[in-house]
């Protein structure tokens, strides 16, 4: 009875920890002349990484700014397409990072960001082990880290491919639209040329007959 209860409590404690995954990856739309800020409470000494990439819109650039709890700017870049910034939190408190599209008059931007705070939570709740990791386990850990970076590269590749694809689709619709438009303009202009020319000669004929009689 006690054994199963203990296991249940461990599982629940682990659930509690897992509920607090510290890493956010979001893609959102930033309208023109808009600024969007995100906040996170960070404990002193935690190593954090902020990575962002502009997916669609205009010249694919955005302003980014990261501030610490006292308002000191830790990172500020204007019109950047893609960047990655790592820092260690020097104070406890709320860190704020903002993306701004205020320089753009009519293009919406889609921005992807990945804010990692600290390390991933351990796989097991009782990670304070007595013995060191066996060779198999440390091999598993290094494979896990390598796969994490593969997934990260895949994400960035997908975002760049999305950029290329949206440009190609824009080009496709633009070609269709303007081709049809030009064909119509061509027809309209040539018919109106003929009609206009006919109208010149019609008027001239009536005036000559009037003068004659």
């Amino acid at each position, binding site marked *: 009875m006690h054994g199963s209860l203990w296991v249940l409590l461990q599982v629940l*404690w682990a659930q509690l920890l897992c509920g607090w995954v510290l890493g956010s990856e979001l893609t959102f739309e930033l309208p023109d002349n808009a600024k969007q800020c995100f906040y996170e409470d960070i404990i002193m000494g935690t190593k954090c990484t902020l990575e962002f990439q502009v997916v669609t819109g205009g010249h694919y650039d955005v302003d980014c700014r990261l501030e610490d709890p006292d308002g000191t700017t830790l990172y500020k870049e204007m019109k950047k397409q893609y960047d990655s910034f790592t820092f260690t939190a020097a104070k406890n408190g709320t860190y704020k990072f903002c993306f701004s599209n205020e320089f753009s008059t009519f293009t919406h931007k889609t921005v992807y960001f990945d804010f990692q705070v600290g390390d991933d939570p351990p796989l097991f709740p009782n990670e304070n082990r007595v013995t060191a990791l066996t060779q198999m386990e440390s091999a598993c850990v290094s494979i896990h880290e390598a796969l994490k970076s593969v997934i990260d590269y895949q994400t960035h590749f997908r975002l760049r491919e999305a950029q290329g694809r949206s440009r190609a689709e824009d080009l496709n619709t633009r070609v269709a639209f303007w081709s049809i438009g030009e064909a119509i303009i061509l027809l309209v202009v040539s018919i109106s040329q003929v009609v206009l020319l006919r109208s010149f000669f019609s008027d001239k004929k009536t005036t000559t007959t009037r003068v004659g009689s």
Partner: protein
Amino acid sequence: MRPSERGHKMLSFSAAGVILLLAWIYPSDSLYFHIGETEKKCFIEEIPDETMVIGKYRTQLWDKQTGSFLPSTPGLGMHVEIKDPDTKIILSRQYGSDGRFTFTSHTPGEHQICLHSNSTKMALFAGGKLRVHLDIQVGEHTNNYPEIAAKDKLTELQLRVRQLLDQVEQIQKEQNYQRYREERFRMTSESTNQRVLWWSIAQTVILIVTGIWQMKHLKSFFEAKKLV
């Protein structure tokens, strides 16, 4: 079992139940942002098919009296709307001030998750500021490994290998999706190529035909007017 033992067991189970509920719903240490009263915030998730997405949010209302955000406000609701890549709504539900939503994608592509507050009480109390804590987990991040270990009774090594298998599966799905996207890109480029070709030919033909028609028509017009 003695009554006191039974009482202890009941208490610990109910406490465990409360912890479970809290852990399940609350993204207590996650990212947050501010949202206006009628503002709709949308997030895009580009995911392969058969991928599970779990989103958790928590809202806090600005209290003018204390000048801070209240820990939790009952009666405040958020409306969550999720659209699939074909802009068909797959989830449209009202949740309370704290909520958890989950869905599994059936078509690969850009899914849009939109949140907006449905409460009108905010205008009276707040001054329009609502703080939303949001945590969205996709794919293999949705797996809860300690729970899987307990359920399937896996050793530590087996659990680590299970985690690696899940990661590799996610990579495979993403590669598959990549192939599908590249096919779409190729089709779009070929369509553009075709369109440029055919419309250029068509425009040249229209030009020549209208030129010939113009000349013929004017010639017959002048002959009729006896000017030629």
